[in-house]
């Protein structure tokens, strides 16, 4: 075995243990040291993924705590802004990313405190892919966002879903900058949007 490679792996493993310790104590990875570059890359990816997952989890906890403490929005307008904040998706995917779950977690207490609030979620896609397939994909994204909220206590009948596929982009042009903004679910208040009650702790 290449001595240098083994050293690199061990060094990387140590770095990841230290990094993880920085935010939360966890058992050190127990996998045997990999021997080739691919394995090193994989280990590196796994480490970054673990850090990112941890960061997201803590951020979500923070936002829930903030929402519960009432430290967030102070008037109806801000609450409406939170409700209407879009969530974003990866290419040809309707799974909720960390940032999407966070955005939904911010909406959740407002929806739970304002039972008269009825919303519509519209799924959108970027321009890549078949426009016919994309219409179905947009529906799937809207359904994915709705399910998240319903599973956390929002009444099913308060949320309807539709899809615009790739027909209504918010950002024009080619490239990931535009595409990433267009892969979204938008939130529209259908009724009960006046005088929103601030969520209580």
């Amino acid at each position, binding site marked *: 075995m290449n001595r240098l490679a083994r050293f690199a792996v061990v060094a990387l493993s140590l770095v990841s243990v230290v990094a993880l310790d920085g935010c939360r104590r966890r058992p050190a990875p127990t996998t045997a040291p990999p021997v080739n570059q691919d394995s090193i890359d994989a280990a590196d990816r796994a480490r970054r993924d673990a850090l990112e997952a941890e960061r997201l989890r803590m951020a979500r906890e923070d936002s829930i705590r903030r929402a519960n403490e009432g430290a967030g929005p102070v008037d109806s307008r801000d609450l409406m802004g939170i409700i209407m904040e879009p969530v974003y998706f990866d290419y040809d995917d309707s799974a909720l990313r960390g940032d999407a779950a966070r955005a939904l977690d911010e909406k959740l207490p407002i929806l739970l405190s304002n039972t008269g609030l009825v919303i519509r979620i519209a799924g959108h896609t970027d321009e890549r892919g078949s*426009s*016919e397939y994309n*219409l*179905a994909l*947009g529906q799937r994204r809207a*359904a994915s966002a709705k399910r998240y909220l319903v599973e956390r206590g929002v009444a099913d009948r308060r949320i309807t879903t539709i899809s615009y596929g790739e027909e209504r982009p918010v950002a024009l042009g080619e490239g990931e900058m535009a595409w990433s903004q267009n892969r979204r679910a938008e939130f529209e208040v259908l009724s009960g949007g006046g005088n929103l009650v601030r969520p209580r702790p």
Partner: protein
Amino acid sequence: MTARSRYRVLALLGLLAGAAAAAEAQDTTRGVRLGLQYRPGIQPGVVVLPVGGPEGDSIRAIISRDLENGDRLRVIALDDSPGARTGVPNYALFARLGAAGLVQATRTASGIHVALHDVAAGRVVEVEDFPLRAAGLSRDWRWGVHGVSDAIEQWITGTPGIAQTRIAFVRGASLFVVDSDGAGEVSIPTVAAPLSPAWNPAGSLLAYNTYGVDSRVVVHDLASGRSRAVSSTRGGVNQTPVFAPDGRTLVYAHACEDCDGSDLYSVGIDGQSQARRLTVGRGSINVSPTYRPDGRRLAFTSSRAGSPQVYIMDADGTNPELLTTFVFGEASYQSNPDWSPDGRLVAYQSQIAGRFQIKTINLGDRTSRQWTSDGANEDPSWAPNGRHLVFTSTRTGTRQLWILDTETGRSRQLTRTAGARLPAWSRRQLAGR
């Protein structure tokens, strides 16, 4: 046997005799073949003689362009006609110009009289009177002239042309229909912004779907202008309708409000019946169906194995199988199938280097072939002759409809106003002649 068909047989015999005589003197290196025998890959030269009388120039121009667009004949343009409009043409002169056939049209009280000359044989081999009653240069009138072009192409090649067909498409938030030569474009009123139009086999109905709020599949009657919603599945997305070959039912895709996937449903076109689910997608996306011409099988786009691919199954939803080939683990995206009218090929779009290109796959040996590489090319739809494809292309910088001849590889631009997409080519017999 009618007198008319007896005449056709005699004419055909004469045609073959003429072709056999001419075959000996052919010079294939110049690409010019004399004689009216048609063979695929060879384009006999044809001269359309000047037409006298009202709208004569337009008739000549439309027929010439139709024959040219058919890609099976080579229209020889003449600045000045070296022969009389009536009477016996100077065959030797036309032969020297490379003409195998002469089209001689004259106006009559009720329409056009057309004679087809076999230059090599030096005589008339077909004559017919075509009524042309609509107001000169109107859309219906042009439609009648397209019918003349198709008859002429049938006389020469044995197969009718595709001039008298129409293509439905979407531009912006509107539905349009255009003649096969790009003229006579009209907009069709819709109940909301339309997508994915489809013709019924008789050409009398157009189905399309709306999207967003209250997405539904609508059938529009071109003669009466009336429309009705036919999708019985409520909410979510109802889209990509396609008529069954019997014209009585259609298949469309429905993604329900709360489910992950989209499945194919079959429903009667009367707007009264309940849709029946065909696919069991288990949360995958299944859209864009197309029937095999015999109505027994369907091709469609599905994400059931990950990336979107084209699948085929029995019309009742059983026996699904992957049609397009892909390498597992590789980014691959193939969709929007359209089954050819002869049943041999399925056209579809395949993502290559981030852009869609038009491909066909042979159902016999499952070999595929790529037809485009310039710009992004999508939404293929077969002409009724199973030879030409209309599709969306960005090759000029704007989204336009183009027509490709899969025999010669030649393509021509159909639309000139930006934004045209989702074309659907009609079958041959259209209502409202």
